[in-house]
């Protein structure tokens, strides 16, 4: 291992964070050095590079922007999973979905990564909205990373990533891809068709009009500074329906941010 000089100097960190901030408004300061280092090490290994200087040089000199987008990916992509954080899905299933009585239902998975959250929402809507077949129910799933969106669009998942799907739902909504790749499963079209994938940098203007019934933005805001978080949270507030639900990651909260939401339960808020 010792082959790679794993030092990330203040100067190197400053360069990287400036780049990232300019590109996607993500503010990597105070205490994010370890996160940046550990995630970028993956890229160094993949490229057979031995120092961060070499890596930064590569990014600054390349014309295609290919490595830059790799870098953004590794820095902004989170561990995701089907039905991650059961408490949130329990809330939606028991306290929210059964009462939705409107023809038009819109959810937004903001920072959707490879789509597991959005597809879990689609399955929940199909299962727990009383009259899903006569509804116009859609999930918008956005991410900054095209690569992640492409992965999400395929709707293919390895068997082991599906362990968190309740067995009944797994049987109902996933099919094995065939003999060649028995460990890969495809999510059914009925679910896939409910999800609309789109690239969006949360810092940019939002092209959609809303309003949304619920927005999930989990473990995304950790990259932003308080001021950016506050701005974003208030934009979410604006685009939700009255009574709409806003869910953040379980380790996040809106404490210390000036906002108008009503607290419902840990990580769950209502407009």
């Amino acid at each position: 291992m010792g082959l790679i000089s794993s030092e990330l100097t203040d100067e190197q960190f400053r360069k990287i964070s400036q780049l990232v901030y300019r590109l996607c408004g993500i503010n990597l300061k105070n205490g994010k050095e370890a996160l940046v280092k550990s995630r970028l090490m993956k890229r160094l290994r993949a490229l057979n590079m031995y120092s961060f200087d070499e890596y930064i040089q590569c990014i600054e000199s390349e014309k295609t922007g290919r490595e830059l987008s790799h870098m953004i990916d590794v820095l902004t992509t989170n561990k995701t999973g089907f039905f991650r954080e059961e408490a949130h899905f329990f809330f939606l299933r028991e306290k929210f979905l059964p009462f939705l009585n409107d023809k038009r239902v819109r959810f937004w998975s903001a920072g959707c990564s490879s789509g597991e959250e959005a597809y879990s929402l689609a399955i929940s809507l199909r299962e727990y909205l009383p009259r899903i077949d006569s509804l116009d129910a859609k999930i918008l799933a956005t991410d900054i990373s095209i690569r992640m969106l492409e992965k999400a669009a395929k709707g293919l998942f390895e068997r082991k990533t599906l362990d968190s799907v309740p067995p009944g739902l797994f049987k109902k909504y996933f099919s094995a891809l065939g003999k060649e790749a028995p460990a890969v499963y495809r999510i059914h079209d009925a679910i896939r068709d409910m999800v609309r994938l789109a690239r969006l940098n949360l810092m940019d203007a939002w092209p959609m009009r809303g309003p949304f019934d619920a927005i999930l933005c989990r473990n995304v805001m950790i990259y932003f500074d308080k001021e950016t978080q506050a701005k974003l949270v208030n934009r979410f507030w604006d685009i939700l329906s009255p009574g709409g639900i806003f869910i953040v990651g379980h380790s996040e909260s809106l404490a210390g941010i000036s906002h108008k939401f009503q607290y419902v339960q840990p990580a769950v808020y209502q407009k």
Partner: protein
Amino acid sequence: MKDVAKSQIIAGTKAIPALPRAATKLFEMLQNPDADMAEIEGILRFEPGLTANILKLTNSAYFGLPNKVGSIRQALVLLGRERLVELTMVTCAGALMWKSVPGYNLSPGELWRHSIAVSLAAEGLVKVLNLPEDKRVFTAALLHDIGKLVMGDWIKGDIEKIDELTAQGTSFEVAERLVLGTDHAEIGAEILKSWAFPQELVMAVRWHHQPERADEPSTMVDIVHVANVLCLMIGIGIGIEGLRYELSSSATEKLGLKPADIEQVASSTLQWVDELGNIFV
């Protein structure tokens, strides 16, 4: 045999999801004019799904409010607490009743549409007859057929026997009773009792096909009965038995209902259901 079925059917009412506590609490508030807004807000605070849908309905074209309503407090001020309770009940009932009901041949949404129509018709009747306002009538009408949710499966199992009886001219609820030992009205009353609704509502559901049998005369019972038959006449919610009920002459007499009144309420009910269709599908 029949009695076994009845006790099993009554046991089956427990499988119906309970009405959220907030709904029954709010309903009690209808009888308590002193309840203040903060109390009502407080009740809904713990029901985010209910709250969201109430606000959606409040903002729907049906009410035509000029500005977006953003909070329960605003909704209370603009719609009044009675409307708010109605929207709460509609939301809760929708969560329960939006499904197909086998046995009665009701396709998904049909029981729901019928229930809404009967509540609107009941309100219309109260207005046209200049009766003293009792806002609880709406909820009684909304829930009058709730027993079908439980009875449906049993009917399905014994449909041939029931068909045979109705073919000979027996009314549907009597045939239900002859074959299964109970009927959807009785089971509905059991459900309302278990939700702790007041006796008068329980009676309105219990006797919605035979208002003359109510323990004591009740306008609510008569109104729900007439509203139900009226909606079946105009074709909303006709399942297997829809055309096999008749208006009770004692109910229409007591209410002083004239054919012209029925016509008027029927036509406005159709219009309301049409308008609401844009919201509820």
